[in-house]
C-alpha cells in the first residue's frame, strides 16, 4: 500500500483525477475477479469432475451439435441484419435533425431495458398466425413464429442497440471537412461514402456486429418463446444448457456453456486484435 502511494506521489499530480495507478488498477482487478472471473471459474469447475471423454461426449452430442448450427446461423443472420439497419439508424440519428429524434434515440436502448422473456412473448404474440403481423405474413405464405426465422427476429431485436451505440460516436466524431474535401475534388456521393466515411466507420461497425453476434449466441429468454424448440430444427444452445440443468446434470450444463463461452471469447479477442491493427494502418502508424 505504502509503495503504491509513493509511486502515485512520484507522478505529476495534475495528470490524473483518480488516485494512483496502483490503487485504481488494483480496485479494477479486484472487481473484475469478483464479478467476472470468479463466476466463470465456478462454471468451469463444475465441469471439471467429468473426464475428457465424457466432456467430449456431451459437447458433441448430435442434438447439441444441431443446436450449435441453429444458434450460429441465426446469430449470423441477426447480426448481419443489425449491421445494415443499425448503421442506417445511427446515420439517421447523427446526421439529420427531425422532430422526435431524441425520442427515437432513447428508444434504441429499449431492448436492453426490457426483460428478454417479455420481448420473446411479445414477439410471439405479434408474429404468431393470429397476431397482428403474423396474420398478414401468413396470408403471404411466410411463417415467422415457431420457425428458425423467429429465432433470428428475437436475436436481432435483443441485440440491435450494440451496433447503433458503437457506430454512433464514431459518426459524430467524423469531421465533415474530409467529406467536403472529397466533394470539392469531384467525387460522387457514393465514392465519398466508400472511400472516406466507410473506412473510418468499419472498425466500429465490425465491433458492433461482433457484439451483437456474441450476445445472440447466449440469448435465451427472448428466443425460447418464439422458437418452437423443435429438436434439430429450432433448438438453440442455451436451451440445451437449460435442459441439462432441469435434469440436475450440472457438469453437462457447464460443459455446453463452456463451449459458448469459448466461442465468444475467441471472437471478441480476434475482433480486438483486428481492430487494433486496422486502426494502426488507417492512421498510417
Amino acid at each position, binding site marked *: 500500500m505504502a509503495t503504491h502511494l509513493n509511486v502515485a506521489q512520484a507522478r505529476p499530480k495534475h495528470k490524473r483525477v483518480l488516485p494512483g495507478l496502483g490503487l485504481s488498477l488494483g480496485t479494477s482487478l479486484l472487481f473484475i475477479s469478483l464479478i467476472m472471473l470468479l463466476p466463470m471459474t465456478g462454471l468451469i469447475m463444475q465441469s471439471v469432475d467429468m473426464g475428457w471423454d465424457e466432456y467430449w461426449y456431451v459437447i458433441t452430442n448430435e442434438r447439441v451439435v444441431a443446436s450449435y448450427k441453429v444458434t450460429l446461423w441465426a446469430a449470423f443472420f441477426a447480426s448481419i441484419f443489425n449491421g445494415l439497419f443499425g448503421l442506417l439508424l445511427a446515420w439517421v440519428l447523427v446526421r439529420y435533425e427531425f422532430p422526435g429524434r431524441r425520442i427515437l434515440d432513447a428508444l434504441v436502448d429499449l431492448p436492453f431495458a426490457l426483460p428478454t422473456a417479455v420481448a420473446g412473448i411479445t414477439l410471439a404474440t405479434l408474429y404468431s398466425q393470429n397476431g397482428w403481423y403474423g396474420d398478414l405474413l401468413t396470408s403471404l405464405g411466410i411463417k415467422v413464429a*415457431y420457425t428458425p426465422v423467429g429465432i433470428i427476429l428475437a436475436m436481432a431485436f435483443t441485440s440491435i442497440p450494440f451496433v447503433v451505440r458503437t457506430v454512433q460516436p464514431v459518426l459524430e466524431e467524423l469531421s465533415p471537412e474530409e467529406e467536403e474535401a472529397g466533394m470539392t475534388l469531384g467525387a460522387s456521393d457514393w465514392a465519398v461514402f466508400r472511400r472516406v466515411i466507410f473506412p473510418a466507420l468499419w472498425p466500429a461497425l465490425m465491433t458492433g456486429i461482433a457484439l451483437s453476434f456474441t450476445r445472440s449466441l447466449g440469448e435465451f429468454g427472448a428466443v425460447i418463446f418464439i422458437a418452437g*424448440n*423443435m429438436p434439430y430444427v429450432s433448438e438453440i444452445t442455451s*436451451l440445451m444448457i437449460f435442459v441439462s440443468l*432441469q435434469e*440436475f446434470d450440472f457438469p453437462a450444463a457447464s460443459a455446453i456453456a463452456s463451449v459458448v463461452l469459448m466461442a465468444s471469447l475467441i471472437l471478441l479477442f480476434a475482433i480486438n486484435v483486428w481492430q487494433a491493427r486496422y486502426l494502426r494502418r488507417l492512421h498510417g502508424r
Partner: protein
Amino acid sequence: MQFKSGVFKTILSSLLLSGAIQASAADQTILNTSYDIARELFATYNPTFQKHWQEKTGQTIEIKQSHAGSSKQANAIMNGLQADVVTFNQVTDVQVLHDKARMIPEDWKAEFPNNSSPYYSTTAFLVRKGNPKNIHSWGDLVRDDVALVFPNPKTSGNGRYTYLAAYGYAQHHFGKNNESNIDDFLSHLLKNVAVFDTGGRGATTTFVERGIGDVLITFESEVNNIRNQYGEDQYEVVVPKTSILAEFPVAVVTKNAKKHDTEEVSHEYLSYLYSEASQRLLAGFNYRIHNDVVKAEFADKFPEVTLLTVEEIAGGWPKATKEIFRNGGKLDQLQRR
C-alpha cells in the same frame, strides 16, 4: 449527509419494525414450495389450514408460498431456499432432495398415504369447438393431419407424463413386446408436435392464445381449468380411455423444518390435505382425489378410465429417467431426424 443518514435510519427502522410485526403476528411461519400452476390452489387451501391449526393448537401460523417449475424449485432448495414443505408435480423432483442433498428421509413416500400423493390427475386432451379433427384416443394423434401441442419432456414434468402416457397406450395397444410398432407410434406422435414449450403454462398459451395446433395435451386438471376459464363453448375435453396416473407428491423438508422447529406443523399441513374438507377443495380445482365420499360426489366430473402407473409403463421414475429422458436416451433416439 445529515439528511441522507436520517433517511437511511428511517428506512432501516421501518424495515426492522415491519420484520418485528411480521414475527409477532404469527407464532410460526412455514414456506410451501410448489409448482407453477398450484398458486391459486394453495392460496385457497392455506386459510382453511390456518383455521384448522388454530382450532387444534390455539397457535397462529403464517404460510408463505413460492411457485416455479418444480425442478427449478428443487434446485433452489438444494441451493438454500428455506422451504419447510414441498408440494410438487413430479416424484423425481422430490426424490432428488434425498439423493443429492439428503434433506429428506429415504422413505419419504411412506410418510403419507397413497405414496405421499394426496391428489392426482391424468393426462387428457383439449380440442377445439366441435372436435373438428375427431380426436377420441391416443391413436388419433398420430394421423398426418393432426398438429399437437404439449410441453417438452426434456424441460417439463408435464411433458414427461404425456410421453409416458402415450407410451403406456402404445404398449397396451400393440402389446408390450411389439417394440418396433411402439417406437413407430411414438416417433409419429413426436413428429406431429407443432411447438415444444418449456412448461405447461407455455403450452396452454400457445394453444389457446396463439391458436396453434389441434390438440393440447396436458394434465386433466389444467384441461378443465382452461375450459372453465376460456369458455365451455370454445373447447372440448377428451379424456382418453387409457392414460397415466400422474401423482402430485408432497414431503416435509426435514432438514429445514428441524432447523426452524416447524416439523410438527409442516407434517400437519400436508396431512390435512387428506381430510374430507381439503379433498373436496382439491376436487374443486379439478384434481382427482382418494377420499371415497368426495369421489362419489364428483363422479360425473372425472370419467372412469384405466390409469397406468409409471411403474407399470416404464419400471418407475429412476428407470424412465435413465433410459428414456436422459441425454442420448430413447426420446433422443426417436426424435433423431
